[in-house]
């Protein structure tokens, strides 16, 4: 009898275990509610499969009203305007047509280049656009997720969109414990920064897509997730004009490019491959400009001869940068080069050197951009860049040199010896 009793407890345990396996259900909910946030968070954890860090947990989540968000944006824009002031880099980007004279993206919110501005020079239209459309965001400085409550956005579709956005932002909070998202402030080149950000945003976008698949029962599977990512990327290319100025288009393109990178890894070996994919992320954006078969072009050393300079003491060098292949692609698209040509040219990128020279009062700015390629630049590229007469372009078998300035008098450019 004792033996029988001894087996009762284990038997109960096994019965319990056999009946286990009920997952937390994922249904549309209001992300301003804590229980909904937890549902989204746990589903993120389940999708990534990395387990649970009890010291991480759900990051602090703050819910603010649209008006509170508006006030934050205005204050932030005013602070940035007061702190930064006019920059030679802003002028340089404008001269190359990387940015437009009229602000066209949330990326330059508050700069006040154009549009309806208030007395402090803050772009009200951009801020209103953000207030209306931003559902949530993650701050690596405060380590918090902020949800913007939109009382007028009701219904199942609005709730689903908000949940998918929250899923994306919560992925960032998970990344922040692994990667240190504030590292993006320490990159020396735009190319390095964009490559790093491509992985971060691509990862968040990829799991956001998986989340949407589960929430909306879209029926995507591991076998067709890459095809889906390719289609989404192609959609960006096809509607390039909607992405705004080339600089902001590059910032937008990192999402689908990174998603495609992750989806390719995922299809090859699930989450395990994605985890390792992090560790071997391309250090330059050219690594994300993959061919149709998914292979990436050679990254190259990034080493390049310096861009030419204007030999004027009154025009000191304000700075130099390496923009990388992705901005080169968007730059060419901005100058009306077709997708296939711009993409192939960007894929042949091996290095670039952007030099900005400016007078102290910013009355004169001169920009030189030397791009080195593994193949001769197509004639259509040179033709497109020189068509308006704003840019001076020199090309040879393996490089493009673009110079432009806002000087009233012609400047003399001198080649800088290659070390």
């Amino acid at each position, binding site marked *: 009898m004792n033996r029988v009793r001894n087996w009762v407890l284990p038997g109960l345990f096994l019965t319990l275990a056999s009946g286990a396996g009920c997952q937390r259900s994922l249904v549309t909910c209001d992300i301003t509610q804590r229980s909904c946030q*937890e549902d989204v968070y746990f589903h993120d954890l389940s999708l990534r499969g990395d387990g649970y860090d009890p010291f991480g947990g759900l990051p602090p989540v703050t819910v603010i009203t649209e008006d509170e968000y508006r006030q934050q944006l205005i204050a932030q824009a005013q602070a940035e305007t007061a702190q930064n002031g006019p920059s030679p880099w802003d002028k340089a980007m404008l001269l190359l047509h990387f940015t437009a004279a009229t602000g066209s993206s949330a990326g330059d919110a508050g700069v006040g280049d154009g549009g309806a501005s208030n007395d402090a020079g803050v772009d009200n239209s951009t801020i209103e656009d953000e207030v209306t459309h931003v559902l949530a965001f993650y701050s690596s400085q405060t380590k918090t997720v902020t949800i913007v409550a939109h009382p007028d956005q009701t219904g199942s579709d609005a709730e689903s969109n908000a949940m998918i956005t929250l899923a994306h932002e919560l992925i960032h909070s998970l990344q922040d414990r692994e990667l240190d998202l504030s590292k993006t402030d320490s990159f020396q080149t735009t190319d390095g920064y964009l490559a790093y950000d491509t992985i971060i945003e691509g990862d968040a976008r990829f799991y956001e897509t998986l989340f949407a698949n589960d929430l909306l029962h879209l029926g995507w599977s591991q076998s067709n997730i890459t095809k889906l990512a390719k289609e989404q990327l192609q959609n960006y290319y096809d509607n390039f004009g909607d992405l705004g100025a080339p600089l902001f288009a590059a910032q937008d393109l990192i999402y689908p490019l990174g998603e495609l990178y992750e989806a390719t890894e995922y299809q090859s070996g699930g989450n395990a491959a994605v985890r390792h994919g992090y560790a071997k992320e391309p250090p330059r954006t050219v690594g994300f400009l993959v061919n149709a078969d998914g292979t990436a072009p050679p990254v190259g050393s990034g080493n390049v001869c310096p861009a030419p300079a204007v030999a004027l003491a009154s025009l000191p060098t304000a700075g130099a940068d390496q923009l990388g292949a992705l901005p080169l692609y968007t730059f060419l698209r901005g100058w009306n080069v077709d997708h296939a040509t711009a993409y192939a040219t960007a894929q042949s990128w091996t290095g670039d050197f952007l030099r900005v020279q400016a007078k102290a009062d910013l009355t004169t700015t001169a920009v030189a951009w030397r791009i080195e390629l593994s193949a001769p630049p197509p004639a259509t590229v040179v033709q497109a860049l020189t068509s308006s007469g704003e840019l001076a372009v020199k090309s040879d078998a393996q490089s493009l040199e673009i110079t432009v300035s806002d000087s009233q008098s012609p400047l003399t450019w001198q080649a800088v010896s290659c070390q």
Partner: protein
Amino acid sequence: MFPYALRVLWGLARTLPAALCLMLSSHASFAQPANPAPQVQDAPSGDTARPAPPPPAYNPAPGYYPPPPYYTYPPPPPPGYAYPPAAWPVQSPYPPELYGNPPNEPPVAAARMQARDEAPRSYSLGATLATSYESEPGSTSIVMSPLLEGALIVHPLVLLDLTWGFGWMVDGQGLGDSTARVGNPMLSGFFRANTGPWRVRAGLGVTAPLAHFPLSPDGRLYAFVYNQALAMWGMWNEWLWTTDRMAVPAMGRVGYALSGGTVLVAEAALAPVIGVRGTAHGTDVLGQLAVEARLPVSATVDLCPRLQTVLLPSTSVDRFQSAAGLRLTLQTQRGRYFAALLLNLDEPLGVFGGLERWGLHFGKELDL
């Protein structure tokens, strides 16, 4: 010469199964039981190595050197004392049985004299290998977490324990891309008191914050290993795995031996943890509580169901992680071995709405 070679071979034959057993259980125990069960023993040889017994037909010629040892039989154990008393595997989630010590334990002075007479072992090594796997679409990751433990009796009432865990993960990317991390080693001191059927243990430990990973593209792999190692133990002794933090856990165990060999055990711990490295900062308090029963199935086999719950840090979504375990132990002449399944029950890791994490545990208890 020939008989000597025979003795060497016989000695090797005797030690081979034990060596194999040690290899398979990822465990090394170099000491003999303090109070061995009745068995044939060899005569003392003056060497630390025990001489091998002669073969049955051994009949040495006169004057052969060295002289063959004689069989001697140890005195029978005291009544109700069939197996050596087991020390508490203090950091294992599974305490051993409590009926090892005789009900009427001699006074400390007598115990000391007995200890001196019998030259009992003063240290022991134990190990548990926890393992699990994460099966996802397109990939399977196997995680192993060995927990090594050494104990030293510094006084009949005081035991020092050193525990150190490790994590290792291999997935579809291959062995060359496997990832390993170290846990936080913990040094603990335990006071041991036995009164009638009651067994009480109280201890204090401190961990060294060696568990760490750099924030880098590899960070997700490292976090995976630590998170899965935690999950396989149901977050038990969380401070052994939590990164960048040190802890000072206060631990206690109470056992009560019922008639028929059944033993009930309750154990608890409370630990302040302090962020000391990396991005960890601040202080938090962790806690844990478990109840376990040891149910004899046969003379050498016990079944031990267990329920445990762990108080998680204040930053956690859920503040408690509960788990159920079932352990099968086998008493052998070389110690007590076990195999166990631990199943997390509730969120965040459990099978009911959580991440469905579990762990299989194999190992050998400390056998002081």
